[in-house]
């Protein structure tokens, strides 16, 4: 039987490739980066939600079991140039020049972090002490701790602004990025642990720590770590030359605030992968209205794209958690396997 292509080596792709191999299916895992692991590894996430495990341990384990698997051929620093044919009989050409014969393909191509430069009023790119959640993750995972980039001091007061690049018509991002509330609560607790003298304020529009994240993140961050949540959409982040100044309206007090902070963190959202237009053209799959890879149907075939034989899983379909991406990777593997085996059976009959 022809191998199945898994495009993308993040949580969804790693999970799909492993599931396929576990079923005895030959799999080719292709990733444009020179390392597997996807966003958690490439961006350098710290401790993951909800396990609390370090990303390099948790995702690293997933990488190792794939890299060591004889049924999985891994192609790093590689992209797919063309893709054609019918289900059960696809042909693909890679950037390396290799030609592949494939039974099916899985797009596990993930997302791109929102670039805060697109919200200039919140000071990213203007003031060095305005950073993103991804950068704070890196500060923590590097082991060097949370420090103000401008002069390396320990911040005494940090503001986390939620919904940066999410739920914002002004910049064409109308979706909720789903994970930022929980991630921010997680980061806030991390900061309070590391720097007990540093107060953390989270400025929110709504809190969406859905499901079990409610008490373990939203409640825990308040009850155990004394993180403060303020319902305010921030108007502007400026500086008085010494500290950052966060301006907005405290909606519960109905008064304007201009509060000094040492550090401002943007809880950046999840954009569709910047490659999605290319992927859409190469694989001839449709994108949904926001630019994510469209699913054929959520109910009868949740991993299917608009093209038979091409499947999708994880954050490629829209903002997604790591856990759900892993689950979707397995589901997509199952769907792809059913597709190639069904065809093989039909051919045999």
């Amino acid at each position, binding site marked *: 039987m022809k191998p199945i292509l898994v495009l993308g080596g993040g949580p969804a792709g790693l999970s799909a490739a492993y599931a396929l191999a576990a079923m005895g299916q030959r799999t080719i895992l292709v990733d444009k980066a020179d390392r597997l692991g996807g966003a958690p590894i490439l961006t350098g996430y710290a401790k993951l939600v909800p396990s609390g495990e370090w990303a390099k341990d948790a995702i690293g384990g997933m990488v190792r079991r794939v890299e060591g698997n004889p049924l999985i051929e891994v192609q790093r620093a590689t992209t797919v140039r063309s893709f054609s044919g019918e289900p059960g009989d696809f042909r693909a050409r890679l950037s390396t020049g290799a030609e592949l014969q494939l039974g099916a393909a899985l797009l596990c191509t993930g997302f791109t972090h929102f670039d805060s430069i697109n919200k200039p009023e919140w000071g990213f790119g203007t003031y060095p002490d305005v950073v993103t959640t991804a950068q704070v993750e890196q500060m923590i995972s*590097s082991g060097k701790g949370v420090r103000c980039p401008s002069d390396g001091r320990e911040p005494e007061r940090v503001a986390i602004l939620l919904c940066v690049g999410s739920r914002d018509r002004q910049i064409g991002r109308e979706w909720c990025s789903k994970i930022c509330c929980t991630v921010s609560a997680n980061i806030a607790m991390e900061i309070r642990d590391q720097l007990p003298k540093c107060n953390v304020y989270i400025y929110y529009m709504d809190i969406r720590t859905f499901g079990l994240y409610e008490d373990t993140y939203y409640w825990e961050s308040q009850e155990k770590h004394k993180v403060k949540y303020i319902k305010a959409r921030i108007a502007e982040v400026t500086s008085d030359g010494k500290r950052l100044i966060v301006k907005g309206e405290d909606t519960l007090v109905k008064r304007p605030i201009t509060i000094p902070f040492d550090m401002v963190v943007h809880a950046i959202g999840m954009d569709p992968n910047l490659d999605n237009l290319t992927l859409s053209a190469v694989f001839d799959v449709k994108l949904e209205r926001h630019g994510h890879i469209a699913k054929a149907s959520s109910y009868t075939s949740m991993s299917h794209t608009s093209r038979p034989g091409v499947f999708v899983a994880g954050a490629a379909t829209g903002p997604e958690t790591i856990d759900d991406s892993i689950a979707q990777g397995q589901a997509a593997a199952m769907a792809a396997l059913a597709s190639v085996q069904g065809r093989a059976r039909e051919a045999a009959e």
Partner: protein
Amino acid sequence: MADDKRSEGAFAGFGPEWRPANLSPDEARAATAWVETRIDRRSLLTGRDQVEDVRDIMWQLEKDGEIAVHRITEQHEPVTARTLYGWKKRIPTNHLWHHKSCGQCGNIPGYPTSLLWLMNKLETRYLDETDQTSCTAWNYHGSGIGNVVSLAAVFLRNFHQAYMSAKAQGLPEGYYYPLVHCGTSFGNYKEMRCFLLHSTKLREQVRKILAKLGRLVDGKLLIPEEVVHYSEWLHVMREPIAEKRVIDLSRVRATVHPACHVYKMVPEDVIYDDTVMDGNRVAVSSGLLQSLGAQVIDYSTWYDCCGFGFRHIIGEREFTRSFAIDRKIKVAVEEARADVMIGHDTGCITTLDKNQWIGRAADKVYELPIMADCQLAALVCGAHPYKLAQLHWHASPFEGFLEKLGIDWQKAKAEFEAYLKEVAAGRIETLYDARRSITSGPGFVRPAIAAKGTERA
């Protein structure tokens, strides 16, 4: 710069403590570009179905024979600037008709004189005539008594006069292009132009009025191609002006107060320039200051109103003075450590300047000099601080600032006092170039003579 800091290995910039995304600026742009290909960055404001360029309507109406357009032509030597939305706006730089400001002439006389002086210095040809009226927009914003028909009629009446004015000098119609001094007039005229272009009914009503006044062109309303503010002229002329400077501004920390009616009203028409404050601030005034060599210092209440508020300065002065001092002056002094605050509108400069004195009733003494961009430009190019820039009309102290510029204000003041004695004795010296003439009213000189004057120009 971030790279330099990274090589130092300390916490600096977005340094080595975390792994950088390693995206080049191009890649970073590409990361979000796809969204912008389908949904524009500021889609609500700039989406074509939400915001149209009223000039498209104007050209269509002109083509349909509905209106006449006072076009900016080569004789006006236009310079193209980019607006907030990336649209092009042509700014005429020569053959200009000064549409003066009531408040400037009344409260800040050094404001228009500085502008005219700069134009003289640059050999710009203009007409400074008395046959013009107030735009009446303060009435509109201050009390809501003004109505759109009267405002639009006043607008077109004045611009028609600008269009026709050259005829008195034996020159063709449209020779002089109107340049608006006042920010209030500027915003209002742009708004009225927009209404006129959109509303057939309004055009009909205004046409009747202008017909009675004999101010139609071939029976049509005359609409200007662009409504142009003097600060836009200064902006596109900033380099030629800078070449004439005789004073070093490099030690000066200048803050800018942009006027709401200049840049918040009809924002799509406002000039932004990537070389001025990274395109994050309206370019006029800031650009000029940069070209003149001053340090332009940003401050956190940059965006705020001055407190004028139109009706507030009349009926709620407590608000105006509190806002002006606490939200603007105090911030500029304490946060930006400013030497001066530069404005480009009548009401703002009046408010920020005249309200400072009463601050001492509440121990709010800041003494921040306030002046218009053209006043500072004139000083820097050698204009007399009293006789020309007329800083003695300002309420906030400016002497220390003049010292910082290296101007001996005591000497200048003595010269001015001597000059006043001359004036009292009847030996009046006009500060204006006689070649620049007017077409009617007091001081009106016969066209034949004026025409000769212009020939010499």
